């Protein structure tokens, strides 16, 4: 993440988009009053973080990190596969959390007949 030396357009786009996504998501999660929008916000934050994580492992002109005889001979630069594996795992986890959250929202809607946070406060928020 050393921005000083190789600050090119691509890097700035990646990091900028990721940070923008995180901020948009946080805004939705913290400010919106509808539970559905809160869940969407949390999921956007996740996407932003995933993008950031993948862009860390990116190398300029890197190819996919798949070892096969044809590729090895050309001795190419490969991108770091570890962040990609991490992001795949994190996407699955994020999916599960979103599913659970939406199930809870459905339960809350059936109970309170609304998804507005301000009207659901049997417990102190």
């Amino acid at each position, binding site marked *: *993440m050393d921005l000083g030396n190789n600050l090119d357009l691509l890097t700035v786009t990646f990091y900028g988009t990721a940070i923008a996504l*995180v901020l948009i998501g946080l805004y939705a*999660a913290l400010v919106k009053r509808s*539970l559905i929008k*809160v869940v969407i916000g*949390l999921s956007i*934050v*996740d996407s932003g*973080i995933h993008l*950031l*994580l993948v862009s*860390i492992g990116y190398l300029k002109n890197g190819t996919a990190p798949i070892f096969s005889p044809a590729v090895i001979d050309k001795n190419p630069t490969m991108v770091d596969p*570890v*962040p990609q594996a*991490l992001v795949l*795992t*994190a996407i699955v*986890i994020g999916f*599960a*959390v979103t599913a*659970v*959250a939406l199930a*809870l*929202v459905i*339960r*809350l809607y059936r*109970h309170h007949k609304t998804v507005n946070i301000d009207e*659901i*406060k*049997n*417990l102190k*928020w």
Partner: protein
Amino acid sequence: MVGSPVQLIAIPLLAAFLMPLLGKAWKELVRLTPGVVLLYLLYLSVDLLSYTIGHGRVVEVIAGWTPPWGINLVFSPFSGFLATLMLFMGLLVWIYSYRFQPFEDYDDYEPTLKYYLLLMMLITASVGVVLTGDIFNLFVFIEILGITAYGLTAYYRGRDGAEASFKYLFIGSLSSTFLLLAIMIIYSQLGTLNMADIAVRAHELKPVYKISALVLFLVAFGIEAEMFPLNGWAPDAYSQAPAPVGAAFAGIVVKAGLYTVIRLIYTLFDVGGTYEFLIVMGLITMIIAEFAAFSQARLKRMLAYSSIGQMGLVLVAFGIGKEEGVYAALFLMFNHAIIKSLLFMSGSYLVYKSKNKYISELNGIGKMLPVTSFLFALGAFAIVGFPPFAGFWSKLAVLTAAADSGMILIIALILSISLIEVVYYLRVVNRIYFVKRDTDLEITKPTPQAMLSMLVLGAIILVVGFYPDVITGILHKASATLLDKGSYINDVLSLSQTIN
């Protein structure tokens, strides 16, 4: 040594996903499987623990990729002690919830299946958090722990479980974001995810990255460990979840959360001032939680706030550092697991039929439910630290550790906060025994299984109270292991040389 640490995670995971199939063959298997599996795992874990005490830690390499490349599990006297404690508490929670009436009230067996499945996953994830030696693996286990905990919190349809659960999910989801960011900073700077490798090379990090990673980690882990101000989820989750789940949260989930904070500060990073930070956060957590507990009108919320207060005290003990402080903290964690679980288990039968679970509805219940009330009183006396019960020795250990480090002000604070604790617990005991009954709520007798698990916990409180030596040996060994960072690093990283 009969098994390896990986079985402690693989077997319950397999059992959890086999349960729906087993239930198709014979419905009773859904109830029986968790017990059989947990009993076997407890045997495995005790056996491994006695082996590690004699021979040092067991480091298990997964799939032949040696550290620092692959994932490894570390079963040391410290992590093994916590894993064994979690499995033991899991077994007791299973006994307590076997044919627990509210679960039987559902028409079909589907809710029962879901409960046991989630409980098994909860235990698997907690044991995984404690044993893993890889920070990304830790993230995965924390997420499994979180998702199962959300599910269990929202278990009852009638109560406000979904609301408590959503609150927990919201804060838990933000915590996982922070955790991913922290892992990303570490990986981008050091190129490794292995805890031992990070511990060796943490000094290569630039201060700005080190501090931001540390802060992000602390926020993420502090949420599970109920550290102030990240513990807003806890009182609601505890009070809305079914009784055995409350006991499981106090005995298992919080222990996993605390473990992550401790591993972070004692092994991963060596930053000046973190111990003082732990003391300050612990004291704030304790003071606020105990005052909040004092003003609660509902029994389960009071117990939840008291639980947060105890976690604050554990953080203080860890912050004191040195072997004495760590020993005191581990002793407190053990006591909190057994005593708070007993309080949740017996307390929930005392307010069983009540809708709002007010403390005032306990008036005079001592004559109607003598054994349960007695066990609740025993737990109350033990947790505030009256001799000769188990809680006395751990509180004494904290005070001695603080005195040896010359922290007189902290002793004064802990003692005055304990006074508040004494007042609100004795107030409940007073209502149980000395106030005339004025409600016409029906009472429910505990099932024999519930009674058995409560009696076991009560017996442990008395045994540890009279003969603390049964537990202190292993606690000393565990605290020495945690402090010996060099041998942790060496044991894990030397594997790549021996195999190659």
